[in-house]
Structures are given as structure tokens and as C-alpha cells.
């Protein structure tokens, strides 16, 4: 950790300054997390009268539960689709905005505002557009001969939540790509142009490789986003259905814990998710360290 040369000394003031943050951290973060770990080794009887220690049994059951393994698969499909779709579209838009000189600030304004839309609201907007009876998209798809029904068809439900989540994330990725593009020295592109490289070749051999730190960073951030913040998108639209087709891991923790009241299993799922966040955070920070040195 970096330190300063000139500092103040006081036996009590720094603790007082840190007290509010640490108090909240302890009461609402560390204590509940500890409780989740503790609970994950316990099992309650069906009436909630007694609990007993069961060791790793909650975890073994979890990883033998086809529902849970399915939820892993659903989460993977969902995260990768949202990340690929929103990163791809954002890159296309950012490259275009970087090319136009006149009006690129206006385009930026018109593209960034969805960041401010709540995930739950984004979900409801797309759910409305995809409403099987009155929605505009099923009407158009019907014209093509496809009977859309996100309430019955698992694939349709997945497409719905992917589109809603990706739509909201484009603006974030767009801003980071645009910042990355504008940081590429103009002289590099000019040198390549003089050497006879056309726009496509320049993009493939110069611009995209120089953007790779940004792309990697966005990949991690987008996966974190789809794993946790999209809870609201799922809850406001499909509710994990139909037939568990959109029941991502973070939604299952809530469903099993709050609705199913299977506390031991829900706690074990929480612990697994904490492990995943730790890995993602670790990757993100390793990467930022590298970027600083680079």
C-alpha cells in the first residue's frame, strides 16, 4: 500500500473517522457473510424447530442437484451472451463515433442515457415489447412465421432477458471503448495509412490490439454485471422461468432462501457465489495493476 511522508498523528482520531464505515461494514457485510458460511454447514428440520451440524452435506447435495447444475449452465449462457452482444455493439458504435468529427458529442449523449435506467425498468420495457398478445416484436416475428412466447418457451425467455440486460449495458461499454479509442495516438494510424493500410486493416492490426486491455476489463465487468445486477431484470420479467430456463445463480439463492426457505442450501449457494466474486475481483485488480505498469 502506498504511503505518504507527511502525516498526522493522533491516538484516537483515525479510529473515530473510520468508525462509521467499519461499523456498517461489520454489521451489514461481514456479520451476514459469516452467518451465511455458518448456516451452510447446518440443516434445519422442516418445522424450523432444531438445527444440526451436517458438515459439507449442503455442498455435496448442491453439486449433485441437477437444478443447481442447470442454473450454472444457464448463468454461463446468459453471461456470455450479454457480454458478447453488448461489447460487440458498443465497439461498433464507439468506432463509428470515433470516426465522425461533427456531432460525436451529440451521439454520445444520445447513447449513454440507458446507463441511468434501472435494470428492473429495462426488464419491464422489453417484457412489454415482447408481450405475446400485444407486443410489437412478436407481431413482427409472427409475420416471419415464428410464434413467440417467452412465458412458455425457454429459449424465448432467455433471449428476452439477454436483450434487456445487454441493452442497458451498451452505454457503459460504449463510453469505455470511446475513451480507449481516443487514447490511441493519431500518429500510429497515420503511419499505418502512409504504409498503405486501409481502414479495415488498421482496425484489425492496430486499433483492436491496442484496445485489448479495455476489452478484457469490460469482459470482467460485464460478467460481474450479468451475474449479480441482472437479478432485477430476471425478477421483473421471467421470474426464473419457464421451467428454470432463466434461473441464474443469484436468483436461485433468493428463491431457495426467501421463497423456498431452504436456508442451508441457500447459504451454501451464497458461499459459492462469494467465491466466484472473489475470483472476479481478483482478476479485475490484477489487470488494473498490469495496466498501471503498462
Amino acid at each position, binding site marked *: 500500500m502506498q504511503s505518504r511522508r507527511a*502525516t498526522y498523528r493522533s491516538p484516537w482520531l483515525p479510529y473515530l473517522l473510520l468508525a462509521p*464505515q467499519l461499523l456498517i461494514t461489520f454489521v451489514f457485510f461481514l456479520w451476514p457473510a459469516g452467518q*451465511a458460511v455458518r448456516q451452510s454447514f447446518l440443516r434445519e428440520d422442516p418445522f424450523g424447530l432444531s438445527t444440526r451440524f451436517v458438515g459439507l452435506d449442503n455442498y455435496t447435495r448442491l453439486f449433485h442437484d441437477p437444478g443447481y447444475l442447470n442454473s450454472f449452465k444457464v448463468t454461463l449462457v446468459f453471461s456470455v451472451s450479454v457480454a458478447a452482444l453488448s461489447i460487440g455493439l458498443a465497439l461498433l458504435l464507439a468506432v463509428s463515433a470515433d470516426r465522425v468529427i461533427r456531432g460525436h458529442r451529440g451521439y454520445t449523449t444520445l447513447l449513454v442515457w440507458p446507463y441511468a435506467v*434501472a435494470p428492473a425498468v429495462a426488464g419491464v420495457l422489453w417484457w412489454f415489447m415482447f408481450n405475446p398478445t*400485444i407486443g410489437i416484436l412478436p407481431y413482427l416475428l409472427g409475420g416471419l412465421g415464428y410464434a413467440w412466447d417467452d412465458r412458455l418457451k425457454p429459449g424465448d425467455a432467455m433471449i428476452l432477458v439477454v436483450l434487456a440486460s445487454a441493452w442497458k449495458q451498451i452505454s457503459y461499454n460504449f463510453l469505455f471503448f470511446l475513451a480507449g479509442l481516443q487514447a490511441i495516438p493519431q500518429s500510429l494510424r497515420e503511419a499505418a495509412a502512409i504504409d498503405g493500410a486501409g481502414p479495415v486493416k488498421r482496425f484489425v492490426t492496430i486499433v483492436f490490439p491496442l484496445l485489448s486491455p479495455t476489452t478484457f476489463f469490460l469482459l470482467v465487468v460485464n460478467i460481474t454485471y450479468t451475474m449479480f445486477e441482472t437479478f432485477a431484470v430476471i425478477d421483473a420479467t421471467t421470474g426464473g422461468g419457464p421451467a428454470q430456463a432463466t434461473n441464474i445463480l443469484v436468483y436461485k439463492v433468493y428463491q431457495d432462501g426467501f421463497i423456498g426457505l431452504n436456508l442451508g442450501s441457500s447459504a451454501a449457494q451464497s458461499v459459492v457465489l462469494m467465491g466466484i466474486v472473489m475470483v472476479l475481483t481478483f482478476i479485475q485488480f490484477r489487470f488494473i495493476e498490469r495496466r498501471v505498469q503498462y
Partner: protein
Amino acid sequence: MVENRPVLTALAHAVLILGVLVVAFPVWLAFVASTHPSTTFLSGLVPLWPGDHWRETYGQMFGAGLSTSGAPPLGLMMGNSLIMALSIALGKIAISILSAFAIVFFRFPFRHLAFWLIFVTLMLPVEVRIVPTFKVVADLGMLNSYAGLAVPLIASATATFLFRQVFLTIPDELVEAARIDGAGPLKFFRDILLPLSRTNMAALFVILFIYGWNQYIWPLIVTTDESLYTVVMGIKRMVDVADAEPQWNYVMATATLAMLPPVLVVVAMQRLFVKGLIEQEK
């Protein structure tokens, strides 16, 4: 632009215009839906052009709410969202700037431990520890209160790190000069650090206001009292009607107004917003 290729530039404009339209389309439809009477949504296709029924829809939502699906008047929900967003944003900024001040400008035992404890909160998003956190809040008697809505969310590792970065760039000479002039730590904080971090605070405020306004799962589980509903979770209550289609015009009027404040903040303070967003990830 390296060379003049009008076709490519035209293509870039076309991609951008298409992008803007696709991004705006869902919101346009929501607004249009809120201007038609409920009967429009019984069958057929949703309208694509605004109707003339908006006064009734918004009047109903602001005046009485939608009691059939348990949604209180819109003004009340927006007020609750505003209280929640402001308390979260200001609370996070206040406690984070204090902790960053302690960590950067003091030497004391357990300094590293404090830093790591704050860091750990990054790895514990509320969605992951939802059940035990709910229990803590319930045990403290904070369900159905503004404190219960805001306080558990105001610890912030990212804000603390941001202020720490800002403070680390302040030259040692400035601190020494302040000390020689007889400024104690609190005076130094008030007269030098606070003014120097004003822009960062404003940028952070934009991001955190949006974060607070858009909270969903937390208000959904800690409030059962309708007078404490926030607008984002209120939409969920309106959509969740058993065995019937939601009343789309009211739902979409609520959605339109739920989007309005944070979107206005982003558009009006675009520069600060971009600064806050990009700095937060450093």
C-alpha cells in the same frame, strides 16, 4: 480521421443513427403506451404514436395510485426514491471521504487491517448475502423504515478507494505547509481536502445517485408498508397481478417517470457522469 473517405463516414453516421434509434425505441414505446387508455391494450398491436389519454393516466397515478395492484400514488413513490437515492449517495460520500482521510493521512496500528476490511465489501454484493442481511436488518428493527432502506447500502469500497487516490496525489509539501501554519488535522481536512476534492465528490454523486435510485431487490424485501415503496420496486408490484394482464398504460406511466430523474441527471451532467464512471474503475 486519417483519410477522407466519405462513404465510410456516411456509414459511421448510419450506424450511429440506427444505434440511437434502437436504444431509444423501448423507451419511446413505453411513453406512447402511457398516453393511451387501458382499452387499447386488450387486443391487437400496441400503438406506435402517442394518444391523447395521457392526462387521465398520469392524473390517476399521481392522484390516487393504483390501489388494485397495491401501488401508492406516484408522487409518494418518487419521494421515497429521492430520499433513498440522496441518503445513499450523500451517506456513501460522507463516510468514504472520512475513512480515506484516516487511511491516507494518519499512521496508526491496524491501518492495513482497516483498509482490507473495507476492500472485502467489494466482494460481498447485497444479492449474494441477501438472506442473512435481511435477518440482521429485521433483528435491528429496521424493516419498513428509511434507515433500513439506506443505511445497509452506504458502506463503499469504491468511493473510499477513489478518495484515497485523490488524496495520494496531494503533494507532501502542502500537508507540511499546513502543519507549519498550525492547521490541525480537522482544519486541514475542512479547508484543504474538501475544497480540493469537490469535483470528485460531484462526479461520484452522479454515479451514486443513479445507483441509489435504481435499487430494486433491497427495497423489495425490506418494505412491506406501501407508504415506503420506491418507484422502481412499485413497478414490480404493478406488473405482478395474478391471472390478468398488467394495466399497461399505468405501468408504463410509472416506468417513464421512474426513468426520468436519473436520465435527466446523466444528460444534464454528462461531463461529471463520464468522469465519475471512468474514475470509479481506476
